[in-house]
Protein backbone atom coordinates (compact mmCIF):
# COMPACT_ATOMS: atom_id res chain seq x y z
CA UNK A 1 0.00 0.00 0.00
CA UNK A 2 1.33 3.41 -0.86
CA UNK A 3 1.95 6.08 1.75
CA UNK A 4 -1.28 7.71 2.95
CA UNK A 5 -2.45 10.95 1.44
CA UNK A 6 -2.00 13.66 4.07
CA UNK A 7 -4.73 16.30 4.18
CA UNK A 8 -4.39 19.52 6.17
CA UNK A 9 -7.82 20.58 7.39
CA UNK A 10 -8.59 23.96 8.90
CA UNK A 11 -9.78 23.92 12.49
CA UNK A 12 -12.87 25.84 13.52
CA UNK A 13 -15.50 27.50 11.38
CA UNK A 14 -14.56 26.01 8.01
CA UNK A 15 -13.98 22.49 9.34
CA UNK A 16 -17.59 21.36 9.58
CA UNK A 17 -18.46 22.45 6.07
CA UNK A 18 -15.26 20.96 4.68
CA UNK A 19 -15.78 17.63 6.47
CA UNK A 20 -19.37 17.51 5.22
CA UNK A 21 -18.21 18.07 1.66
CA UNK A 22 -15.54 15.39 1.99
CA UNK A 23 -18.14 12.99 3.36
CA UNK A 24 -20.41 13.51 0.37
CA UNK A 25 -17.45 12.86 -1.88
CA UNK A 26 -17.03 9.50 -0.14
CA UNK A 27 -14.28 10.36 2.33
CA UNK A 28 -15.69 9.53 5.72
CA UNK A 29 -13.99 11.70 8.34
CA UNK A 30 -15.08 11.76 11.97
CA UNK A 31 -17.65 14.44 12.54
CA UNK A 32 -16.53 15.53 15.97
CA UNK A 33 -12.86 15.59 15.08
CA UNK A 34 -12.80 19.34 15.40
CA UNK A 35 -13.64 19.07 19.08
CA UNK A 36 -11.08 16.43 19.90
CA UNK A 37 -7.66 17.61 20.88
CA UNK A 38 -5.89 15.19 18.62
CA UNK A 39 -3.97 16.89 15.83
CA UNK A 40 -3.37 13.91 13.57
CA UNK A 41 -5.90 11.22 12.73
CA UNK A 42 -5.32 8.14 10.62
CA UNK A 43 -7.93 6.54 8.37
CA UNK A 44 -6.01 3.49 7.18
CA UNK A 45 -9.00 1.91 5.38
CA UNK A 46 -9.13 4.97 3.11
CA UNK A 47 -5.36 5.43 3.12
CA UNK A 48 -5.76 8.96 4.39
CA UNK A 49 -4.18 10.91 7.21
CA UNK A 50 -5.81 14.11 8.39
CA UNK A 51 -3.99 16.84 10.26
CA UNK A 52 -5.74 19.69 11.99
CA UNK A 53 -4.17 23.10 11.50
CA UNK A 54 -4.97 26.73 12.09
CA UNK A 55 -6.63 28.00 8.88
CA UNK A 56 -3.83 30.54 8.33
CA UNK A 57 -1.24 27.73 8.53
CA UNK A 58 -2.79 25.18 6.16
CA UNK A 59 -1.09 26.77 3.16
CA UNK A 60 2.30 26.60 4.87
CA UNK A 61 1.98 22.87 5.60
CA UNK A 62 1.04 22.24 1.99
CA UNK A 63 3.76 24.41 0.44
CA UNK A 64 6.49 22.64 2.39
CA UNK A 65 5.02 19.23 1.57
CA UNK A 66 4.19 18.31 5.17
CA UNK A 67 0.66 17.81 3.82
CA UNK A 68 -0.14 16.76 0.24
CA UNK A 69 -3.49 18.51 0.10
CA UNK A 70 -5.19 21.20 2.11
CA UNK A 71 -8.35 23.22 2.37
CA UNK A 72 -7.62 26.90 2.69
CA UNK A 73 -9.46 30.19 2.40
CA UNK A 74 -8.74 32.32 -0.66
CA UNK A 75 -7.97 35.18 1.77
CA UNK A 76 -4.95 33.27 3.07
CA UNK A 77 -3.84 32.36 -0.47
CA UNK A 78 -4.04 36.00 -1.55
CA UNK A 79 -2.17 37.20 1.51
CA UNK A 80 0.62 34.64 1.49
CA UNK A 81 1.23 34.04 -2.22
CA UNK A 82 2.64 30.56 -1.77
CA UNK A 83 3.80 28.01 -4.31
CA UNK A 84 0.85 25.57 -4.32
CA UNK A 85 -1.65 24.40 -6.90
CA UNK A 86 -5.09 25.90 -6.43
CA UNK A 87 -7.16 23.17 -8.07
CA UNK A 88 -10.75 23.55 -6.97
CA UNK A 89 -13.10 26.19 -5.63
CA UNK A 90 -15.03 24.31 -2.93
CA UNK A 91 -17.48 27.22 -2.63
CA UNK A 92 -17.72 26.74 1.13
CA UNK A 93 -17.48 29.42 3.83
CA UNK A 94 -18.33 32.25 1.44
CA UNK A 95 -17.47 35.74 2.62
CA UNK A 96 -15.61 38.72 1.22
CA UNK A 97 -12.82 41.14 2.00
CA UNK A 98 -13.95 44.73 2.33
CA UNK A 99 -12.79 48.19 3.28
CA UNK A 100 -14.75 49.62 6.21
CA UNK A 101 -14.62 52.60 8.52
CA UNK A 102 -16.68 55.15 10.42
CA UNK A 103 -19.52 56.61 8.33
CA UNK A 104 -18.96 59.85 6.38
CA UNK A 105 -15.25 59.92 7.04
CA UNK A 106 -13.23 60.74 3.93
CA UNK A 107 -9.85 59.06 3.72
CA UNK A 108 -7.26 61.32 5.34
CA UNK A 109 -5.19 63.21 2.75
CA UNK A 110 -1.92 62.79 4.60
CA UNK A 111 -0.72 59.20 4.97
CA UNK A 112 -4.04 57.42 5.51
CA UNK A 113 -3.70 54.50 7.90
CA UNK A 114 -5.30 51.12 7.29
CA UNK A 115 -5.56 48.53 10.04
CA UNK A 116 -5.75 44.91 8.87
CA UNK A 117 -4.95 41.24 9.31
CA UNK A 118 -4.18 41.21 5.58
CA UNK A 119 -1.32 43.68 4.93
CA UNK A 120 -0.58 42.40 1.43
CA UNK A 121 -4.18 42.29 0.24
CA UNK A 122 -4.78 45.78 1.63
CA UNK A 123 -1.68 47.41 0.16
CA UNK A 124 -2.19 45.70 -3.24
CA UNK A 125 -5.77 46.99 -3.31
CA UNK A 126 -4.97 50.60 -2.41
CA UNK A 127 -2.02 50.66 -4.80
CA UNK A 128 -4.37 49.64 -7.61
CA UNK A 129 -6.65 52.50 -6.57
CA UNK A 130 -3.71 54.88 -6.80
CA UNK A 131 -3.73 55.58 -3.07
CA UNK A 132 -0.59 55.57 -1.00
CA UNK A 133 -1.48 54.27 2.42
CA UNK A 134 0.24 53.05 5.57
CA UNK A 135 -0.56 49.65 7.01
CA UNK A 136 -1.06 48.93 10.69
CA UNK A 137 -1.00 45.15 11.14
CA UNK A 138 -3.36 43.75 13.77
CA UNK A 139 -4.29 40.18 14.68
CA UNK A 140 -7.89 40.48 15.80
CA UNK A 141 -10.74 42.84 16.76
CA UNK A 142 -9.79 44.96 13.77
CA UNK A 143 -13.05 46.96 14.17
CA UNK A 144 -11.52 48.61 17.21
CA UNK A 145 -8.96 50.53 15.17
CA UNK A 146 -11.21 53.22 13.58
CA UNK A 147 -13.28 53.53 16.76
CA UNK A 148 -10.36 54.67 18.86
CA UNK A 149 -8.60 56.58 16.11
CA UNK A 150 -5.78 54.12 15.41
CA UNK A 151 -6.64 53.94 11.70
CA UNK A 152 -8.83 55.65 9.08
CA UNK A 153 -10.07 52.42 7.57
CA UNK A 154 -9.88 48.70 8.11
CA UNK A 155 -9.57 45.89 5.60
CA UNK A 156 -11.17 42.72 6.89
CA UNK A 157 -13.29 39.67 6.19
CA UNK A 158 -17.04 40.30 6.17
CA UNK A 159 -19.51 37.41 6.22
CA UNK A 160 -22.77 38.83 7.57
CA UNK A 161 -21.77 42.40 8.29
CA UNK A 162 -23.08 42.17 11.84
CA UNK A 163 -19.85 42.97 13.61
CA UNK A 164 -19.41 46.09 11.51
CA UNK A 165 -22.97 47.21 12.18
CA UNK A 166 -22.83 46.61 15.92
CA UNK A 167 -19.75 48.77 16.11
CA UNK A 168 -21.22 51.57 14.02
CA UNK A 169 -18.93 50.97 11.05
CA UNK A 170 -19.92 51.02 7.38
CA UNK A 171 -18.55 49.18 4.42
CA UNK A 172 -16.90 51.41 1.83
CA UNK A 173 -15.71 49.03 -0.91
CA UNK A 174 -15.72 45.33 -1.51
CA UNK A 175 -12.26 44.07 -2.49
CA UNK A 176 -12.88 40.45 -3.45
CA UNK A 177 -15.05 37.41 -2.80
CA UNK A 178 -13.63 34.62 -0.69
CA UNK A 179 -14.38 30.90 -0.60
CA UNK A 180 -12.34 27.89 0.46
CA UNK A 181 -10.10 26.22 -2.08
CA UNK A 182 -8.57 22.80 -2.46
CA UNK A 183 -4.81 23.26 -2.68
CA UNK A 184 -2.09 20.76 -3.57
CA UNK A 185 1.66 20.63 -3.01
CA UNK A 186 3.48 20.87 -6.39
CA UNK A 187 5.49 17.68 -5.83
CA UNK A 188 2.55 15.63 -4.53
CA UNK A 189 0.58 16.89 -7.52
CA UNK A 190 3.01 14.98 -9.74
CA UNK A 191 3.93 11.99 -7.60
CA UNK A 192 0.50 11.16 -6.19
CA UNK A 193 -1.43 12.32 -9.22
CA UNK A 194 -3.75 9.29 -9.34
CA UNK A 195 -5.06 9.62 -5.78
CA UNK A 196 -5.24 13.39 -6.03
CA UNK A 197 -7.04 13.42 -9.39
CA UNK A 198 -9.49 10.91 -7.97
CA UNK A 199 -10.24 13.14 -4.99
CA UNK A 200 -10.52 16.23 -7.18
CA UNK A 201 -12.95 14.56 -9.56
CA UNK A 202 -15.10 13.17 -6.72
CA UNK A 203 -15.25 16.59 -5.10
CA UNK A 204 -16.07 18.29 -8.40
CA UNK A 205 -18.89 15.81 -8.96
CA UNK A 206 -20.38 16.72 -5.58
CA UNK A 207 -20.03 20.40 -6.45
CA UNK A 208 -21.63 19.91 -9.88
CA UNK A 209 -24.57 18.13 -8.27
CA UNK A 210 -25.24 21.12 -6.09
CA UNK A 211 -25.52 23.64 -8.83
Amino acid sequence: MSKPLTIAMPKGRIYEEAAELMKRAGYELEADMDESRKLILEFPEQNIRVMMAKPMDVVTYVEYGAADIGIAGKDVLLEQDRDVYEVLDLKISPCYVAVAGLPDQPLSRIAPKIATKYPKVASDYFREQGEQIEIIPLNGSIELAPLIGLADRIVDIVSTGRTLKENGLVEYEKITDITSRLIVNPVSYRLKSTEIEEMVSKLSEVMEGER
Partner: protein
Amino acid sequence: MVKRLMFEKPLGMRDTLPFFYNQKSKARQQLSNAILSFGYSFMDTPIMEYHETVGKVSATLDQQLFKLLDQQGHTLVLRPDMTAPIARVAASQLKDAEFPLRLAYEGPVFRAQQTEGGKPAQFEQVGTELIGDHSSYGDAEVIALLVESLKQTGLDDFVITVGHIGYVKAFFTDLLGDDEDTIEYLLNYLYRKNYVGYREAVKELSVPKDKKDALLQLLTLKGGDEIFDSSRSLARNQACMQAVNELKQLYRLLQQYEVEKYIHFDLNLISHMDYYTGILFEGYAPNLGALLCNGGRYDTLLPSFQLSASATGFAVHLERLVEALNEQESDDGRIGVIVDDDSYGQGLQEAKRYREDGQAVLLQHVDQIPDLQAFKAELSETIDLTKGGGERDE
Protein backbone atom coordinates in the same frame (compact mmCIF):
# COMPACT_ATOMS: atom_id res chain seq x y z
CA MET B 1 20.93 47.25 15.92
CA VAL B 2 20.73 43.93 17.65
CA LYS B 3 24.18 42.71 18.55
CA ARG B 4 24.91 39.49 16.69
CA LEU B 5 25.71 36.39 18.64
CA MET B 6 29.00 34.83 17.59
CA PHE B 7 27.47 31.71 16.02
CA GLU B 8 25.12 33.59 13.69
CA LYS B 9 25.44 33.66 9.92
CA PRO B 10 23.48 35.64 7.32
CA LEU B 11 19.90 34.61 6.66
CA GLY B 12 19.59 31.69 4.29
CA MET B 13 23.24 30.65 4.55
CA ARG B 14 24.14 27.19 5.78
CA ASP B 15 27.24 25.38 6.95
CA THR B 16 28.06 22.02 5.44
CA LEU B 17 29.32 19.68 8.14
CA PRO B 18 31.50 16.65 7.30
CA PHE B 19 28.74 14.07 7.03
CA PHE B 20 26.63 16.17 4.66
CA TYR B 21 29.76 17.31 2.82
CA ASN B 22 30.70 13.70 2.11
CA GLN B 23 27.24 12.86 0.86
CA LYS B 24 27.22 15.91 -1.35
CA SER B 25 30.63 15.06 -2.83
CA LYS B 26 29.51 11.52 -3.49
CA ALA B 27 26.32 12.61 -5.25
CA ARG B 28 28.19 15.32 -7.16
CA GLN B 29 30.77 12.76 -8.29
CA GLN B 30 28.12 10.33 -9.49
CA LEU B 31 26.27 13.03 -11.40
CA SER B 32 29.54 14.24 -12.94
CA ASN B 33 30.52 10.75 -14.01
CA ALA B 34 27.24 10.31 -15.86
CA ILE B 35 27.57 13.75 -17.46
CA LEU B 36 31.18 13.11 -18.50
CA SER B 37 30.17 9.75 -19.96
CA PHE B 38 27.90 11.62 -22.40
CA GLY B 39 30.87 13.62 -23.65
CA TYR B 40 30.16 16.88 -21.83
CA SER B 41 33.06 19.07 -20.61
CA PHE B 42 32.96 20.79 -17.24
CA MET B 43 33.74 24.48 -16.90
CA ASP B 44 33.39 27.24 -14.33
CA THR B 45 32.61 30.96 -14.35
CA PRO B 46 33.09 33.69 -11.73
CA ILE B 47 30.79 33.95 -8.74
CA MET B 48 30.19 37.63 -9.55
CA GLU B 49 28.85 39.07 -12.79
CA TYR B 50 27.60 42.46 -13.96
CA HIS B 51 23.95 43.12 -13.28
CA GLU B 52 23.75 44.80 -16.68
CA THR B 53 24.73 41.62 -18.54
CA VAL B 54 24.18 38.29 -16.80
CA GLY B 55 21.94 39.70 -14.07
CA LYS B 56 19.43 41.15 -16.52
CA VAL B 57 19.06 38.13 -18.78
CA SER B 58 19.02 35.39 -16.15
CA ALA B 59 15.78 33.54 -15.47
CA THR B 60 15.82 34.69 -11.85
CA LEU B 61 13.56 37.56 -10.86
CA ASP B 62 15.32 40.86 -10.24
CA GLN B 63 14.21 41.08 -6.62
CA GLN B 64 15.78 37.68 -5.99
CA LEU B 65 19.25 38.76 -7.08
CA PHE B 66 22.01 39.47 -4.58
CA LYS B 67 23.42 42.84 -5.65
CA LEU B 68 26.60 44.59 -4.65
CA LEU B 69 28.70 47.48 -5.94
CA ASP B 70 32.28 47.31 -7.19
CA GLN B 71 34.78 50.11 -6.58
CA GLN B 72 33.71 51.94 -9.74
CA GLY B 73 30.09 51.88 -8.65
CA HIS B 74 28.92 49.20 -11.12
CA THR B 75 26.17 46.92 -9.87
CA LEU B 76 27.31 43.33 -9.59
CA VAL B 77 25.26 40.22 -8.89
CA LEU B 78 26.16 36.94 -7.28
CA ARG B 79 25.34 34.50 -10.05
CA PRO B 80 21.73 33.37 -9.61
CA ASP B 81 22.16 30.44 -12.01
CA MET B 82 24.85 29.02 -14.27
CA THR B 83 22.99 29.13 -17.56
CA ALA B 84 23.36 32.86 -18.20
CA PRO B 85 27.14 32.94 -17.40
CA ILE B 86 27.71 29.93 -19.64
CA ALA B 87 25.72 31.60 -22.40
CA ARG B 88 28.01 34.63 -21.99
CA VAL B 89 31.10 32.41 -22.39
CA ALA B 90 29.62 30.48 -25.32
CA ALA B 91 28.89 33.75 -27.10
CA SER B 92 32.34 35.22 -26.47
CA GLN B 93 35.39 33.04 -25.76
CA LEU B 94 33.83 29.92 -27.25
CA LYS B 95 32.07 31.48 -30.24
CA ASP B 96 34.61 30.05 -32.65
CA ALA B 97 34.53 26.57 -31.10
CA GLU B 98 32.84 23.76 -32.99
CA PHE B 99 29.11 23.68 -32.36
CA PRO B 100 27.10 21.97 -30.90
CA LEU B 101 28.80 22.67 -27.58
CA ARG B 102 28.34 20.23 -24.73
CA LEU B 103 29.15 22.03 -21.49
CA ALA B 104 28.58 21.13 -17.85
CA TYR B 105 29.01 22.84 -14.50
CA GLU B 106 28.78 22.36 -10.78
CA GLY B 107 28.89 25.11 -8.22
CA PRO B 108 27.04 27.41 -5.87
CA VAL B 109 24.38 29.84 -7.06
CA PHE B 110 22.72 32.59 -5.04
CA ARG B 111 19.16 33.78 -4.64
CA ALA B 112 18.32 36.60 -2.27
CA GLN B 113 17.34 35.72 1.25
CA GLN B 114 13.84 34.59 2.06
CA THR B 115 12.65 35.26 5.55
CA GLU B 116 11.35 31.74 5.91
CA GLY B 117 13.22 28.55 6.68
CA GLY B 118 13.87 25.81 4.16
CA LYS B 119 14.74 28.23 1.35
CA PRO B 120 18.50 28.62 1.26
CA ALA B 121 20.04 31.73 -0.28
CA GLN B 122 23.03 29.72 -1.51
CA PHE B 123 22.76 26.26 -3.01
CA GLU B 124 24.68 24.09 -5.40
CA GLN B 125 23.62 23.17 -8.91
CA VAL B 126 25.00 20.46 -11.14
CA GLY B 127 23.89 20.79 -14.73
CA THR B 128 24.51 20.74 -18.45
CA GLU B 129 23.99 22.97 -21.47
CA LEU B 130 23.73 21.69 -25.02
CA ILE B 131 24.25 24.75 -27.21
CA GLY B 132 23.62 24.90 -30.95
CA ASP B 133 21.46 21.81 -31.39
CA HIS B 134 17.84 22.78 -31.92
CA SER B 135 16.54 19.30 -32.76
CA SER B 136 14.41 16.85 -30.80
CA TYR B 137 17.55 14.72 -30.59
CA GLY B 138 19.03 17.48 -28.44
CA ASP B 139 15.96 17.66 -26.20
CA ALA B 140 15.95 13.88 -25.82
CA GLU B 141 19.67 13.73 -25.04
CA VAL B 142 19.36 16.28 -22.25
CA ILE B 143 16.35 14.57 -20.64
CA ALA B 144 17.88 11.10 -21.01
CA LEU B 145 21.13 12.34 -19.51
CA LEU B 146 19.21 13.87 -16.60
CA VAL B 147 17.50 10.53 -15.96
CA GLU B 148 20.79 8.61 -16.24
CA SER B 149 22.56 11.02 -13.90
CA LEU B 150 19.87 10.72 -11.25
CA LYS B 151 19.87 6.93 -11.56
CA GLN B 152 23.65 6.96 -11.19
CA THR B 153 23.23 8.45 -7.70
CA GLY B 154 20.98 5.57 -6.66
CA LEU B 155 17.73 7.50 -6.92
CA ASP B 156 15.05 5.48 -8.67
CA ASP B 157 11.77 6.91 -7.48
CA PHE B 158 11.38 10.13 -9.41
CA VAL B 159 9.25 11.68 -12.12
CA ILE B 160 10.20 14.05 -14.91
CA THR B 161 7.25 16.10 -16.12
CA VAL B 162 7.65 17.40 -19.66
CA GLY B 163 5.73 20.27 -21.23
CA HIS B 164 6.00 22.47 -24.29
CA ILE B 165 5.64 26.22 -23.94
CA GLY B 166 5.31 26.56 -27.71
CA TYR B 167 2.20 24.41 -27.58
CA VAL B 168 0.52 26.50 -24.89
CA LYS B 169 1.27 29.78 -26.65
CA ALA B 170 0.17 28.53 -30.08
CA PHE B 171 -2.95 27.05 -28.51
CA PHE B 172 -3.90 30.41 -27.04
CA THR B 173 -3.15 32.22 -30.29
CA ASP B 174 -5.31 29.71 -32.15
CA LEU B 175 -8.29 30.32 -29.87
CA LEU B 176 -7.87 33.95 -28.93
CA GLY B 177 -6.10 35.45 -31.92
CA ASP B 178 -3.70 38.25 -31.18
CA ASP B 179 -5.34 39.38 -27.95
CA GLU B 180 -2.02 39.43 -26.16
CA ASP B 181 -3.30 40.89 -22.90
CA THR B 182 -5.76 38.04 -22.42
CA ILE B 183 -3.14 35.46 -23.38
CA GLU B 184 -0.68 36.92 -20.88
CA TYR B 185 -3.40 36.94 -18.26
CA LEU B 186 -4.27 33.27 -18.79
CA LEU B 187 -0.63 32.21 -18.97
CA ASN B 188 -0.05 33.95 -15.68
CA TYR B 189 -2.78 31.88 -14.01
CA LEU B 190 -1.19 28.68 -15.28
CA TYR B 191 2.26 29.86 -14.21
CA ARG B 192 0.94 30.58 -10.72
CA LYS B 193 -0.68 27.11 -10.62
CA ASN B 194 -4.05 28.75 -10.04
CA TYR B 195 -6.51 26.53 -11.93
CA VAL B 196 -9.48 28.02 -10.11
CA GLY B 197 -8.52 31.50 -11.31
CA TYR B 198 -7.88 30.18 -14.82
CA ARG B 199 -11.32 28.56 -15.05
CA GLU B 200 -13.02 31.71 -13.78
CA ALA B 201 -11.08 33.90 -16.21
CA VAL B 202 -12.07 31.61 -19.10
CA LYS B 203 -15.74 31.77 -18.09
CA GLU B 204 -15.57 35.57 -18.12
CA LEU B 205 -14.14 35.74 -21.65
CA SER B 206 -16.38 36.95 -24.44
CA VAL B 207 -15.69 34.07 -26.84
CA PRO B 208 -18.02 31.32 -28.17
CA LYS B 209 -18.73 28.33 -25.95
CA ASP B 210 -16.73 25.83 -28.00
CA LYS B 211 -13.64 27.97 -27.54
CA LYS B 212 -14.25 28.20 -23.82
CA ASP B 213 -14.58 24.43 -23.64
CA ALA B 214 -11.32 24.00 -25.50
CA LEU B 215 -9.58 26.45 -23.16
CA LEU B 216 -10.85 24.49 -20.16
CA GLN B 217 -9.77 21.21 -21.73
CA LEU B 218 -6.20 22.44 -21.79
CA LEU B 219 -6.11 21.71 -18.05
CA THR B 220 -6.71 18.01 -18.70
CA LEU B 221 -3.78 17.58 -21.07
CA LYS B 222 -1.52 15.63 -18.78
CA GLY B 223 -0.47 12.02 -18.39
CA GLY B 224 1.35 9.54 -20.61
CA ASP B 225 1.73 9.46 -24.37
CA GLU B 226 -2.05 9.00 -24.75
CA ILE B 227 -2.49 12.78 -24.40
CA PHE B 228 -0.99 13.39 -27.84
CA ASP B 229 -4.21 12.42 -29.57
CA SER B 230 -6.43 14.67 -27.47
CA SER B 231 -3.96 17.55 -27.72
CA ARG B 232 -4.05 17.14 -31.49
CA SER B 233 -7.81 17.29 -31.65
CA LEU B 234 -7.83 20.45 -29.54
CA ALA B 235 -5.11 22.21 -31.45
CA ARG B 236 -5.79 23.28 -34.96
CA ASN B 237 -3.06 25.60 -36.12
CA GLN B 238 0.29 24.73 -37.61
CA ALA B 239 2.35 25.73 -34.57
CA CYS B 240 0.32 23.51 -32.22
CA MET B 241 0.66 20.56 -34.58
CA GLN B 242 4.37 21.11 -34.79
CA ALA B 243 4.70 21.24 -31.00
CA VAL B 244 2.75 18.01 -30.62
CA ASN B 245 4.90 16.38 -33.28
CA GLU B 246 8.00 17.49 -31.42
CA LEU B 247 6.68 15.93 -28.23
CA LYS B 248 5.82 12.69 -30.03
CA GLN B 249 9.24 12.57 -31.59
CA LEU B 250 10.79 13.28 -28.17
CA TYR B 251 8.81 10.43 -26.63
CA ARG B 252 9.95 8.02 -29.34
CA LEU B 253 13.56 8.97 -28.74
CA LEU B 254 13.19 8.65 -24.98
CA GLN B 255 11.80 5.16 -25.55
CA GLN B 256 14.97 4.36 -27.46
CA TYR B 257 16.98 5.67 -24.51
CA GLU B 258 14.76 3.36 -22.39
CA VAL B 259 13.91 6.08 -19.90
CA GLU B 260 10.23 6.56 -20.77
CA LYS B 261 9.00 5.11 -17.48
CA TYR B 262 10.22 8.24 -15.68
CA ILE B 263 8.47 10.60 -18.08
CA HIS B 264 5.09 12.27 -17.68
CA PHE B 265 3.62 14.94 -19.89
CA ASP B 266 1.79 18.05 -18.82
CA LEU B 267 0.95 20.50 -21.56
CA ASN B 268 0.15 23.32 -19.18
CA LEU B 269 3.49 23.20 -17.39
CA ILE B 270 4.90 26.71 -17.30
CA SER B 271 8.07 26.94 -15.22
CA HIS B 272 8.80 30.53 -16.08
CA MET B 273 6.85 33.36 -17.66
CA ASP B 274 9.18 34.14 -20.56
CA TYR B 275 12.44 32.22 -20.37
CA TYR B 276 11.78 28.89 -22.03
CA THR B 277 10.78 28.71 -25.67
CA GLY B 278 10.14 25.04 -26.41
CA ILE B 279 10.21 21.76 -24.55
CA LEU B 280 10.67 22.22 -20.81
CA PHE B 281 10.70 19.87 -17.84
CA GLU B 282 10.69 19.60 -14.07
CA GLY B 283 11.76 16.66 -11.89
CA TYR B 284 10.26 15.59 -8.58
CA ALA B 285 11.14 13.00 -5.94
CA PRO B 286 9.20 11.78 -2.89
CA ASN B 287 9.84 13.29 0.56
CA LEU B 288 10.91 16.51 -1.06
CA GLY B 289 8.49 19.40 -0.83
CA ALA B 290 10.05 21.23 -3.75
CA LEU B 291 11.56 20.77 -7.23
CA LEU B 292 14.53 18.41 -7.55
CA CYS B 293 15.66 19.58 -10.97
CA ASN B 294 14.42 21.45 -14.00
CA GLY B 295 15.40 22.64 -17.43
CA GLY B 296 14.31 23.16 -20.98
CA ARG B 297 14.96 24.83 -24.27
CA TYR B 298 15.76 28.52 -24.31
CA ASP B 299 16.22 30.30 -27.62
CA THR B 300 16.29 33.97 -26.63
CA LEU B 301 19.13 33.92 -24.09
CA LEU B 302 22.05 33.42 -26.50
CA PRO B 303 20.79 36.10 -28.93
CA SER B 304 20.86 38.57 -26.02
CA PHE B 305 24.65 37.91 -26.06
CA GLN B 306 24.66 38.36 -29.86
CA LEU B 307 24.94 34.68 -30.65
CA SER B 308 22.14 33.26 -32.68
CA ALA B 309 21.82 29.72 -31.37
CA SER B 310 19.28 27.51 -29.65
CA ALA B 311 20.18 25.72 -26.47
CA THR B 312 18.78 23.34 -23.89
CA GLY B 313 19.98 22.07 -20.54
CA PHE B 314 19.13 20.91 -17.06
CA ALA B 315 20.13 21.79 -13.51
CA VAL B 316 19.94 19.50 -10.49
CA HIS B 317 19.58 21.03 -7.03
CA LEU B 318 22.37 19.06 -5.32
CA GLU B 319 21.36 19.59 -1.69
CA ARG B 320 17.80 18.51 -2.45
CA LEU B 321 19.11 15.45 -4.27
CA VAL B 322 21.07 14.44 -1.16
CA GLU B 323 17.93 15.00 0.89
CA ALA B 324 15.93 12.80 -1.50
CA LEU B 325 18.56 10.05 -1.35
CA ASN B 326 18.12 10.14 2.43
CA GLU B 327 21.13 7.96 3.17
CA GLN B 328 21.94 6.89 6.68
CA GLU B 329 25.07 8.18 8.31
CA SER B 330 27.63 5.64 7.23
CA ASP B 331 31.12 4.61 8.14
CA ASP B 332 33.55 6.93 6.38
CA GLY B 333 36.29 4.27 6.37
CA ARG B 334 38.89 6.19 8.37
CA ILE B 335 41.59 4.26 10.24
CA GLY B 336 43.00 5.69 13.45
CA VAL B 337 46.51 4.93 14.69
CA ILE B 338 46.78 5.72 18.40
CA VAL B 339 50.29 6.15 19.75
CA ASP B 340 52.21 7.18 22.85
CA ASP B 341 55.72 8.68 23.15
CA ASP B 342 57.46 5.34 22.59
CA SER B 343 55.37 4.10 19.65
CA TYR B 344 55.24 7.41 17.74
CA GLY B 345 57.82 6.35 15.14
CA GLN B 346 56.24 2.97 14.65
CA GLY B 347 52.86 4.65 14.26
CA LEU B 348 54.20 6.96 11.57
CA GLN B 349 55.47 3.98 9.59
CA GLU B 350 52.19 2.14 10.00
CA ALA B 351 50.16 5.18 8.90
CA LYS B 352 52.42 5.71 5.90
CA ARG B 353 51.93 2.12 4.78
CA TYR B 354 48.13 2.45 4.91
CA ARG B 355 48.21 5.82 3.16
CA GLU B 356 50.25 4.34 0.35
CA ASP B 357 47.43 1.80 -0.03
CA GLY B 358 45.11 4.75 -0.55
CA GLN B 359 43.42 4.65 2.84
CA ALA B 360 42.57 7.59 5.09
CA VAL B 361 44.60 7.33 8.29
CA LEU B 362 44.81 9.65 11.24
CA LEU B 363 47.61 9.52 13.76
CA GLN B 364 46.73 10.60 17.27
CA HIS B 365 48.76 10.79 20.48
CA VAL B 366 46.82 9.11 23.26
CA ASP B 367 47.42 11.90 25.80
CA GLN B 368 45.28 14.31 23.80
CA ILE B 369 42.21 12.05 23.65
CA PRO B 370 39.70 12.94 26.36
CA ASP B 371 37.61 9.77 25.93
CA LEU B 372 39.35 6.88 24.23
CA GLN B 373 36.24 4.71 23.93
CA ALA B 374 34.22 7.43 22.20
CA PHE B 375 37.16 8.39 20.00
CA LYS B 376 37.47 4.82 18.72
CA ALA B 377 33.74 4.62 18.06
CA GLU B 378 34.05 7.43 15.49
CA LEU B 379 36.50 5.42 13.38
CA SER B 380 35.96 2.34 11.30
CA GLU B 381 39.15 0.75 12.57
CA THR B 382 41.77 1.66 15.18
CA ILE B 383 45.30 0.45 15.67
CA ASP B 384 46.33 1.04 19.26
CA LEU B 385 50.12 1.07 19.59
CA THR B 386 50.16 2.44 23.17
CA LYS B 387 51.66 0.44 25.99
CA GLY B 388 48.95 -1.86 27.32
CA GLY B 389 46.55 -0.90 24.54
CA GLY B 390 45.08 -3.63 22.37
CA GLU B 391 47.00 -4.07 19.12
CA ARG B 392 43.96 -3.80 16.95
CA ASP B 393 40.34 -2.89 17.57
CA GLU B 394 37.72 -3.33 14.96
